[in-house]
């Protein structure tokens, strides 16, 4: 088999097939990939979950927790205490309880220097944690049980009952002699910020931009953290336990941990849900599939944003397997206000005793998976072919375009040579002249110019990525708030960049633009594959949106077609996509409002979403913003320029016909 630039390569059978049918095959590949993805939720095609870590010994031990009354008492006390602290954790009470139980008790201060807007806005926070030291083991390993504290002024539902159950569990656990790992009981402030700061302080690293989050220092540590369970119980009476797994940048905890949580909930008789949905079986293939597919798509959407849907998501980066148990209160049956703290306490006990049995980090089972329900999973081996097919369509198109260009050039030069020799023999003189002209204008592939375009677009991407700080400073000068200035600034940049093609000097050169097209296709294909290795959902969604557009986009002679292409391509700009999606969601969520109200609301929501993604990028280093700025926008610009380029010269068809 010859290499691409080998003159004989154009004659191979496969090459000929690719040249002839690449557009059809790539469409087929795309459709195949999407179909494959759709079928993943069909239960005969995925697998049931199972434990692969022997050491866990899940739920073999009898639960001994029966201290429900003290949990109840802690809860009542905390309710009283919370009235005194409107905006912060009731530190003295929690510290006193930790100390009474007999834990090593510490506090941890952190500061956030808000990166946007006017300079030097600071927010301070304070976490509380207590460490239960394993009596018969060295403090080399630990487990974490964390609760985000929400003061009464917080808009989210309260987590007071999870603190109560945590304290009761700590009291029970401290009396036991079988712990082989320390247990860290962590109560954090300011939702994810507190956990992020605590983790950064624990490992003494900075994850986001330097100087944004000052993580402070910890005075007590407990060795390598093996696993973490984050609790968000909203009530003492818990009807359902929702298990959340999606972490930062779409990272997931080991499937064994998820299995452990589901299994322990079942064991103690608490209904568990995933994405708020119970496992259902309709015994009808299609209905089952659509239910499972919907569940899976919820997971895909959450994972694709890369935003953790609970405090557990920030642990994953440090190799700590973590998940959130969200206790959803039982609104309907208030037959007992005593609650079922006993069962929830036993769920925690069972999970922690299983984790206690671990001998090494979670390393068995799967780290990459999709869950169509809590008892079935799609492993990476099953889902990766779908994105490979979708991204493969791009590669195939790039390949086909390259071969065609090559064939065109070969034919052209042969024809040119022939015509040179046979000038006197006046064979289709006019056509020859036209070809000559084309050769003159098109023959050279201007590599410098191509790389110039690529460099320019990517540089622009990096500038956009780092611009928010400056934009908000400028905005603040004109008394614009942060959100508006960032969104306005981005929209302005978007508008200016629409004129990029004017400055691309090679756009009339068919050959150079084809090479640019090929490179851009390859870039996006590669990025899709790389992304989906880490965050499959993001790669899959991007692929599903962009690949059909890119298969369709081609510089054309037809004015109308060309305009439609340009319009569609503008719609797929990330900023437009974001605005569009938020509009739709607002429309769905607030159906009664007038268009004007809806518009205002969704614009504000879009601005917020943009700011959140930027702040997430700076504090937690959420990739989404970076990927979009550094890859998607530059790539978009390249294709935008390609849309304005010269289409394939018409004479080319004559040439190929002659050749055939």
């Amino acid at each position, binding site marked *: 088999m010859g290499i691409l630039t080998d003159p004989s390569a154009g004659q191979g059978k496969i090459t000929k097939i690719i040249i002839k049918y690449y557009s059809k095959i790539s469409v087929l590949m795309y459709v195949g990939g999407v179909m494959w993805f759709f079928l993943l939720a069909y239960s005969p095609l995925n697998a049931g979950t199972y434990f692969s870590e022997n050491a866990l010994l899940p739920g073999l031990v009898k639960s001994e927790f029966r201290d429900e009354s003290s949990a109840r008492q802690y809860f009542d006390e905390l309710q009283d205490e919370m009235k005194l602290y409107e905006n912060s954790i009731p530190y003295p009470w929690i510290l006193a309880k930790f100390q009474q139980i007999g834990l090593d008790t510490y506090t941890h201060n952190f500061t956030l220097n808000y990166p946007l807007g006017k300079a030097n806005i600071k927010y301070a926070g304070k976490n509380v944690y207590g460490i239960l030291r394993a009596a018969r083991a060295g403090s080399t390993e630990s487990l974490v049980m964390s609760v985000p504290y929400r003061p009464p002024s917080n808009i989210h539902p309260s987590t007071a009952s999870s603190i109560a159950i945590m304290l009761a569990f700590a009291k029970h656990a401290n009396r036991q*002699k079988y712990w082989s790992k320390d247990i860290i009981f962590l109560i954090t402030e300011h939702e994810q910020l507190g956990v992020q700061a605590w983790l950064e302080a624990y490992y003494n690293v900075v994850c986001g931009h330097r100087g944004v989050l000052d993580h402070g220092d910890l005075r007590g540590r407990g060795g390598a953290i093996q696993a973490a369970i984050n609790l968000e119980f909203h009530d003492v009476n818990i009807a359902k336990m929702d298990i959340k797994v999606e972490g930062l940048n779409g990272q997931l905890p080991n499937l064994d941990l998820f299995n452990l949580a589901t299994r322990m909930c079942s064991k103690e008789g608490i209904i568990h849900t995933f994405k708020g949905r119970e496992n259902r079986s309709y015994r009808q293939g299609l209905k089952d599939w659509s239910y499972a597919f919907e569940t899976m798509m919820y997971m895909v959407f959450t994972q694709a944003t890369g935003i953790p849907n609970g405090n557990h998501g920030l642990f994953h980066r440090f190799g700590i397997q973590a998940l959130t148990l969200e206790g959803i209160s039982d609104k309907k049956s208030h037959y007992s206000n005593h609650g079922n703290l006993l069962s929830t306490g036993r769920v925690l006990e069972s999970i922690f005793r299983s984790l206690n049995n671990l001998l090494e980090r979670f390393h068995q089972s799967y780290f990459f998976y999709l869950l169509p329900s809590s008892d079935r999973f799609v492993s990476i081996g099953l889902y990766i072919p779908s994105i490979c097919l979708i991204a493969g369509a791009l590669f195939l198109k790039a390949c086909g375009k390259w071969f065609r260009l090559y064939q065109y050039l070969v034919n052209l030069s042969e024809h040119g040579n022939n015509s040179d020799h046979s000038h006197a023999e006046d064979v289709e003189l006019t056509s020859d002249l036209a070809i000559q002209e084309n050769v003159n204008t098109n023959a050279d592939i201007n590599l410098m110019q191509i790389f110039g375009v690529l460099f320019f677009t990517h540089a622009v991407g990096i500038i956009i990525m780092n611009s928010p700080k400056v934009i908000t400073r400028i905005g603040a000068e004109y008394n614009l708030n942060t959100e508006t200035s960032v969104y306005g600034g981005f929209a302005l940049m978007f508008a200016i960049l629409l004129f990029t093609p004017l400055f691309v000097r090679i756009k009339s050169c068919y050959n150079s633009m084809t090479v640019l097209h090929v490179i851009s296709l390859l870039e996006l294909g590669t990025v899709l594959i790389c992304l989906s290795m880490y965050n499959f959902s993001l790669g899959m969604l991007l692929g599903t949106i962009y690949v059909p557009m890119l298969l369709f986009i081609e510089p054309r002679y037809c004015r109308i077609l060309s305009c439609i292409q340009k319009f569609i391509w503008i719609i797929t700009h990330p900023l437009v996509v974001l605005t569009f999606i938020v509009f739709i969601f607002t429309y769905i969520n607030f159906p009664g409002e007038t268009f004007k109200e809806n518009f205002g609301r969704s614009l504000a929501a879009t601005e917020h979403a943009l700011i959140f993604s930027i702040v997430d990028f700076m504090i937690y280093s959420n990739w989404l913003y970076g990927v979009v700025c550094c890859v998607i926008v530059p790539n978009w610009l390249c294709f935008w320029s390609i849309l304005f380029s010269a289409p394939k010269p018409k004479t080319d068809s004559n040439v190929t016909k002659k050749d055939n």
Partner: protein
Amino acid sequence: MNKRNYFVFHVIFFAIIIVCHCENYTDKIDDFFQNKHTNNWAVLVDTSRFWFNYRHVSNVLSIYRSVKRLGIPDSQIILMIADDMSCNPRNPRPATVFNNANQHINVYGDDVEVDYRGYEVTVENFVRLLTGRLPPDTPRSKQLLTDEGSNILVYLTGHGGDGFLKFQDSEEITSQEMADALEQMWQKQRYHELFFMIDTCQAASMYERFYSPNILAVASSLVGEDSLSHHVDPAIGVYIIDRYTYYALDFLENVDPFSKKTIGEFLTVCPKRVCISTVGIRKDLFGRNPYDVPVTDFFGSVRPIKLLSNTSSDTNLLISTTKKVVPRSKSQYRYVPPLISFKK
């Protein structure tokens, strides 16, 4: 008259019974001397570590307890245990190892002598132990000091696969290595008969390559089968014993040093109905019919007894001389002169 006849009849009857009995008795004496082995040894090995393998430690300690109860002294038991379960921080009952859910018997009692422990349990040490190629400074308790008259019980438990047995988490002994080690033992006249017992997954693969004589092998599962655990102790939170060993112990608990139960019976302790795996047996290398071999030939111990056919006067003399009491001298203390100077 009638009464007298009756009496005579009785006497004759009893005489016959006594004679028969005596005859029987002498048979048994002969039987006793047919046993060619002169001493018993046991090599009990647990090859796996980690808390979740609690059951393997409890397996091997249970067998240890049985063979000790049946009379093999600690000096002739080599006990290899790869991990210390009793002191594992996860153990809610520190310093104990139990072999059943109700925690009746603490098999890690006061008088357990572990000869190879923790990371000493390696393939190299095991093979060196069997073949006797240990460094000269090895303590006697870590040596298998067997001879051509020794009956050896080898019990292995751990995680196995097709053709190997995993030691610790790092190495394996293959069935070929095992077979070669036993052949070396045979050539070095280190055993008379050997009973090879193994409780692992695919255990039968371990004895397939054996080619040395006088080996009787039993395995908890055939190739391609898993050996399963018997039950969980919810108080400790682990699988506490394996099925095959559990039923083997069930049998051994009813055996005492004078029991007439045979190895043949022992080989059928765990039918597939209860074991779930199929117990594999290999007896083609073994010269005798297992149903003629008492269990105590391997699990019990014989003391070296030499029965003499006729009492010779020499021995009597010897006994009498040893019985002679030396009269105490009345002058118990006397002056001992200082050291003599030889230079004079």
